[in-house]
């Protein structure tokens, strides 16, 4: 169990446009109650949202650090406009805290100074991870669609290079980003006059097929999976394969309780089956999926082989 004891639970950056007040309350509770070791802050999806909450960043960092959490600030996934280039360069100049880079513009700005590689950087393989390590990367978050056998190879390579390696185990997967805002489009607006309509959907705007099956979620310029990734049954194998950090993405559910379920499995010996049942109750109408891990369609939920 020694390896499991070293495994860290992390909380990814909030993907949605939650209000500043909601964020303050959320992180206060995370600081006080959630059994996560590391917390990623910062706006990753839309540069227009950042002014609403970036003023709170120093206080939030302080609050989380006083609670013993490691704080990392994540950079934008898409960098195109002047304000996005500046925001990325400004974050890259910070130290501390640690930063997680999600766009090559951030890599350029950061240079050889230490940084983490975010899930939007497409670190799919050992050659790319080795390249990134040589440029100052200390930690890599693998793409959510990478299947289990590739995760094992990538984790081994990262370990050999002395890097931390992270995999998302909970929450909606990012499936696409675009220059166009699909939230604004749904409301007959464009990105420039969006009036921040994405704030209405704290867990993403559901899209359904025309025969009424849930399929995708829209979050501004981002398209997400309808299902939450739920790699609780796979977490033991991930840890055995050398994954050092398991990432929970913030959703509009009780994230403290979600983190407790993962903690109880990793460190408390809670049976996976019982834990998975608890997780299903917490996520309500959103289904859990693990298809990507098993090399199947991402939305699928592949049953565990019978464990003896």
């Amino acid at each position, binding site marked *: 169990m020694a390896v499991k004891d070293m495994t860290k639970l992390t909380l990814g950056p909030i993907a949605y446009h939650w209000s500043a007040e909601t964020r303050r309350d959320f992180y206060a509770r995370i600081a006080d109650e959630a059994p996560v070791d590391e917390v990623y802050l910062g706006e990753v999806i839309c540069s227009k949202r950042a002014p609403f909450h970036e003023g709170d960043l120093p206080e939030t960092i302080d609050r989380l650090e006083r609670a013993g959490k490691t704080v990392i600030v994540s950079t934008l996934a898409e960098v195109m406009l002047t304000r996005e280039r500046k925001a990325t360069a400004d974050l890259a100049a910070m130290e501390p805290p640690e930063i997680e880079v999600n766009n090559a513009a951030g890599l350029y700005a950061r240079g050889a100074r230490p940084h983490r590689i975010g899930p939007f950087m497409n670190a799919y*393989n050992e050659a790319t*991870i080795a390249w990134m390590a040589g440029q100052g990367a200390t930690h890599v978050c693998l793409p*959510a669609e990478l299947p289990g056998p590739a995760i094992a190879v990538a984790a081994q390579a990262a370990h050999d290079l002395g890097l931390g390696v992270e995999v998302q185990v909970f929450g909606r997967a990012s499936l696409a980003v675009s*220059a166009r805002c699909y939230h604004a*489009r749904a409301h007959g607006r464009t990105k420039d006059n969006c009036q921040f309509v994405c704030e209405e959907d704290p867990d993403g705007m559901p899209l359904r097929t025309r025969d009424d099956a849930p399929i995708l979620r829209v979050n501004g310029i981002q398209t997400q999976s309808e299902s939450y990734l739920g790699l609780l049954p796979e977490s033991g194998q991930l840890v055995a394969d050398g994954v050092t950090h398991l990432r929970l993405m913030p959703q509009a559910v009780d994230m403290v309780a979600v983190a407790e379920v993962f903690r109880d499995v990793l460190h408390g010996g809670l049976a996976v089956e019982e834990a998975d049942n608890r997780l299903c109750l917490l996520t309500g109408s959103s289904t859990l999926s693990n*298809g990507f891990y098993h090399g199947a*369609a991402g939305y699928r939920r592949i049953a565990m082989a019978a464990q003896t």
Partner: protein
Amino acid sequence: MSLAELICPAGTPAALRTAVDAGADAVYCGFQDATNARNFPGLNFTPDELAEAVTYAHARGTKVLLALNTYPPAGKVDLWRQAADLGVRLGVDAFIVADMGVADYIARTHPQARLHLSVQAAASSPEAIRYYCEHFGVRRVVLPRILTIPEIRQIKREIPCEIETFIFGNHGLMVEGRCSLTNYLTGQSTNMDGVCSPASDVEYARHEDGAMSSQLAGFTIDRFGPQEKAGYPTICKGRYTAPHRPEGYYAFEEPVSLNLSRLLPDLIEAGVHAFKIEGRQRSKSYVRGVVRAFRAAVDDIRAGRQANMADLVALTEGQKQTQGAFETKKWR
């Protein structure tokens, strides 16, 4: 003024010869495997076919660009390295790459090879482009289809390499190289397998009321009335419902083609060096018609003559077309 090279699709050896004969300055193609982003059944080249193609193209002054623009999953990088080695042996003129590990391998192992940065790398700022130029010696960037002409002009001032933009064909909506929609529904990955809304997972279902559903892996991507023409179920061009849109709407984009022919002179003036025609999956006659029309237009513009834009616009006549992000920010 830039040379305005015309970069044309070659999905098959026959299409390659057609594009060369129709006046392409360069053709782009890939091997029959996951190393390129159009890994579709019946498309692409065996090593022997590529060898013949390079000979054919070079004899006519046309360059051959090899697409190695997918992302190898860990444990499988050798397939991409072997493809690069083979491309060098066969004498291709440049490699179109996206993955940093692949770019690094080619830059170190074949330092004389010319690298182009694929649109799949999603480099949309001067800083991102400079990263690839400075570290891997990238000589040309294929820009994502999300930038306006003023933005392209600004980028050109700040980067040390050539710019290639798409000018005609499929209008990609998502940032390329960051899209897992196909893998989410089908289990095949655009980034790792070179697959997008694969035909093997497509079904059309006729309903009692005469309507038709187009489906991908069992998901209804669109539903068409009896009088509507049923389109191909590409996920990002489907119609869905949302809480505010119960009637069903194109949540991402309408099924339109990109046609920037009207903007050709402006793009040349903005500093675009090369123009890419999309469509490795299209027929020989399509390739012939499109390449000939753009060849004539580019030659007219180079010679200072008024280009006959009507021919180019007519290529998509009867179909919906767009100038996408290039014309106005309102697209976003």
